[in-house]
């Protein structure tokens, strides 16, 4: 460690390397070589970054650099604190994995746009690092917009495809509008504190006139980027149509930048208004339930994963909401547990969601399709992928012994503690909500895993699937191992986020130690290992029995039906149909079925089922068309009659004359 420069410089260096890692690919004659260089540089940068992160976690304070740029926004400060560190942990890990993954997923020799993609991928990662390091409003905005734009160019990699175009446009419009909210945020902040430099933490009084506007602007700008309901509508399409490794970074990392923004903004204030905590809690709960319900209704592998991102963001915000509520009802346990839960989940989601998206990339690579109902039986041909994907699925359902459980455990404990202590334990209702979300998550991912990997292939494409390349498997393996470690050794996760929690919660002392009184970290390790041991023991015993006993193979028992075909298998849509009906109000999928007026539907009639996008299809699009219609009337002013144009001039003159008097 001592060989390295101090952390901030390390991080800046890493960001610089990432930013330019793609250049050789654009300039070199052989793009393939360029891609390899880019990958190596990216991996190196990631290692450098992680080393810096661990220095910071070890307690080394990062320096603060003030560069006085000529722009009229005051000096630009760049520094790193515990909050940034928290988000940097998954950032570099995932970036490195994705860089390796892209080598065999998006090889320059097959894909003409690989150079461009690699370049923007590096830029994207670098921009995110800068977002986390910037301490000046305008610098932050620049990094932010750079991130958003490079994400746009990444997700429109296959810009020939009209669907990609559509979702890309929706994404671009949404993010830019959100940036306008950030314009307001930082301009108001400048007006309030008199400088574009971020104010020191816990200095602004909530009594300020601008406070409410500041927070609302932050909620809109950052919440939209995080995919918080109801500003989530851009997310499923964008994540689904981007190249999978890009989706992995967008979902695993970029969404978290929105969370970071809200945390950063709220950290400026000494105390926060009471409504904020509850609002975040409600929005989080809504996003969690609605997001996972949407996910259950999807037929597109990656749309499903995208919707579950909404759910996970919701869980994170439930945690933050609990924490804020705890702060104002001064319930320290609630605060600490909420923050621990949210922050741990931030890291975890970065791991398993990226893992799952990379896995989906492997699937698309192998089967050439995103339709869940067109796959099946893939596990036989893609054993490695199926195992890693299973780990991801278990983790995202929050099932022990994987890392997903740890974060949720903290949230439950916090909520139920509130149930014990608070006079009116409304926050405790987060627990049943989380339970519901957990149940839905199990439905969703059993559907996802079972329909894709298990059973028998539903199409020739699925039957002809092939295992992913070594680099892809390797990248996924790293993340999967991360999930396992996080689950088996929760203490590690606790130690990783403890500094950020104490930084944000303003509490002092060894939180990692204190929290252990509240939340069973060590017993969890013990029981998880016991669980794993039991599983191994039982399997061993079972296999021994099998060795001894006669065993034969045959077709699946068709319940008396003699000629079952793969197409008769239960499909994903039918698997989730029951629950989708239960949550019809939140999901409202489009169904078109033939009118059944006789015993059998008429020949050639078809049944169509498609997941709907409520906000976009039923709210925004109509509004837009209405506005367009209104505008078309105003356009008549430009009617091409010269003499009326001259009249405009004199009218203006006249009006101004009147105004003057």
């Amino acid at each position, binding site marked *: 460690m001592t060989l390295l420069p101090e952390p901030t410089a390390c991080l800046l260096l890493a960001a610089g390397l990432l930013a330019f890692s793609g250049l050789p690919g654009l300039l070199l004659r052989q793009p393939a070589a360029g891609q390899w260089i880019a990958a190596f540089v990216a991996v190196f940068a990631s290692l450098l970054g992680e080393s810096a992160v661990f220095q910071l976690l070890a307690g080394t304070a990062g320096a603060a650099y003030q560069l006085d740029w000529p722009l009229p926004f005051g000096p630009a400060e760049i520094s790193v604190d515990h909050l940034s560190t928290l988000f940097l942990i998954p950032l570099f890990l995932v970036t490195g994995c994705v860089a390796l993954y892209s080598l065999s997923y998006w090889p320059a020799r097959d894909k003409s746009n690989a150079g461009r993609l690699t370049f923007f991928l590096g830029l994207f990662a670098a921009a995110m690092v800068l977002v986390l390091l910037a301490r000046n409003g305008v610098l932050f905005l620049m990094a932010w917009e750079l991130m958003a734009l490079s994400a746009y160019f990444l997700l429109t990699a296959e810009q020939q495809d009209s669907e990609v175009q559509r979702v890309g446009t929706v994404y671009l419009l949404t993010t830019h509008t959100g940036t306008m909210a950030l314009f307001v945020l930082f301009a108001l902040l400048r007006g309030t504190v008199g400088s574009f430099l971020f104010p020191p933490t816990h200095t602004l009084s909530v009594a300020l006139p601008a406070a409410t506007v500041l927070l609302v602007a932050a909620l809109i700008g950052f919440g939209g980027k995080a995919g918080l309901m109801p500003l989530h509508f851009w997310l499923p399409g964008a994540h689904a149509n981007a190249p999978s490794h890009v989706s992995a970074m967008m979902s695993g990392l970029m969404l978290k930048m929105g969370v970071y923004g809200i945390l950063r903004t709220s950290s400026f204030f000494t105390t926060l208004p009471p409504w904020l905590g509850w609002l975040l809690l409600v929005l989080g709960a809504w996003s969690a339930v609605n997001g996972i319900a949407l996910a259950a209704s999807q037929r597109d592998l990656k749309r499903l994963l995208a919707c579950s991102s909404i759910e996970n963001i919701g869980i994170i915000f439930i945690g933050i909401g609990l924490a804020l509520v705890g702060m104002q009802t001064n319930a320290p346990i609630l605060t600490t547990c909420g923050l621990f839960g949210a922050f741990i989940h931030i890291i975890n989601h970065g791991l398993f969601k990226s893992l799952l998206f990379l896995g989906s990339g492997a699937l698309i690579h192998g089967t050439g399709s995103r339709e869940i109902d067109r796959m099946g039986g893939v596990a036989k041909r893609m054993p490695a992928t*199926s195992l890693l994907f299973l780990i991801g699925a278990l983790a995202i359902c929050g*099932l022990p012994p994987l890392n997903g459980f740890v974060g949720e455990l903290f949230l*439950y404990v916090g909520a139920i503690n509130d149930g014990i202590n608070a006079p009116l334990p409304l926050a405790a209702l987060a*627990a049943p909500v989380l339970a519901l979300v957990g149940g839905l998550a199990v439905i969703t991912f059993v559907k996802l895993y079972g329909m894709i990997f298990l059973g028998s292939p539903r199409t020739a494409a699925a039957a002809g699937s092939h295992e992913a390349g070594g680099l892809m498997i390797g990248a996924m393996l790293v993340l999967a191992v991360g999930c396992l470690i996080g689950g088996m050794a929760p203490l590690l996760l606790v130690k990783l986020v403890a500094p950020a929690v104490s930084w944000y919660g303003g509490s002092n002392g060894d939180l990692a130690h204190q929290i252990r009184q509240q939340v069973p970290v060590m017993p969890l390790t013990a029981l998880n290992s016991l669980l794993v041991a039991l599983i191994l023991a039982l399997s061993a015993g079972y296999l021994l029995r099998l060795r001894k006993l006669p065993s034969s193979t*045959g077709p699946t028992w068709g319940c008396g039906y003699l000629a079952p075909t793969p197409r008769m298998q239960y499909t994903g849509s039918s698997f989730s149909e029951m629950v989708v009906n239960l949550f019809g109000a939140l999901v409202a999928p489009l169904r078109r079925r033939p009118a059944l007026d006789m015993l059998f539907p008429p020949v050639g009639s078809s049944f169509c089922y498609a997941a709907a996008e409520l906000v976009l299809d039923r709210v925004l699009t109509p509004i837009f068309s209405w506005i367009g219609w209104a505008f078309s009337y105003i356009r008549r002013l430009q009617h091409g009659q010269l003499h009326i144009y001259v009249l405009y001039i004199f009218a203006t003159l006249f009006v101004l004359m009147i105004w003057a008097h």
Partner: protein
Amino acid sequence: MTAIIIHCLIALLLPPLLLGVITKTKAAFAGRDGAPYFQPYYDLLKLLRKGSVFSTTTTWVFKAGPLVSLAAILVAALLVPLGRHQAPISFQGDMILFAYLFGLARFFTTIAALDTGSSFEGMGAAREVTFACLTEPTLFIALITLARMSKSLQLSTMLTYPTPAIWLAAGASMLLLVAALFIVLLAENCRIPFDDPTTHLELTMIHEVMVLDHSGPAFGVILYGAALKLLLLGAIFINIALPVSTGNPYGDWLVFVAAMLVLSVLIGVVESVMARLRMVRIPQLLVGATILSAFAMLLVLR
């Protein structure tokens, strides 16, 4: 130490008997004298010695399913106090781990079912996960209520907390809780009115249809796991419903075993006198249970 050993012994040995009692009760209602009480033990031993048939469709997941779920339930068994005794392992928030271990078990049971590629088993899996996701909120609201009453997040404390005094004090809410938990118990264990373990019409089944293709030791494991699950949820139910304590620890063990047997009889009675609900009705009943527990919580808050 002895307590732990007894706990483990009961947890490991008692479950099949419960199944035996239930079948016996039902037989009695049907006017037959039915299979002996220990028939399930014989079945298990037999299954462990039988060979297996595997579908060509299946993968390792099919084999892993029963094992992982049994392992999960076994671990869960260490967290639940049986009667008035502390559970072997107990810590703040163990109830959450308890619930999620069941989740893990469910996950593997269902993917094992999907692994066969049979549409019937897929159907069963779908129903299993859907109904489970409706029962979980009920369980958690009930647990929050208990946690608030007992001021603790440990299953052992929470479940050994209820006493006759408390029943007298907060009888209404306790009653609601018991009702809710009984429904959860029946639903989670796929009992009538939710599911009929003895039916032979695959279209109407939930749990049984998922395990159609399992055979030999694996099927034994599944049967045993189901029984154990019944024991655990039954234990939770009894701890709340029957807050009696003889001063003597061994007495408590006996009381618990007796209570479990009574509970199985009760289940047998319910199965004999009730008909299975239509699938569409089931969610309504489950949501009803959630509302019951929510009421209980409200009463406690008041």
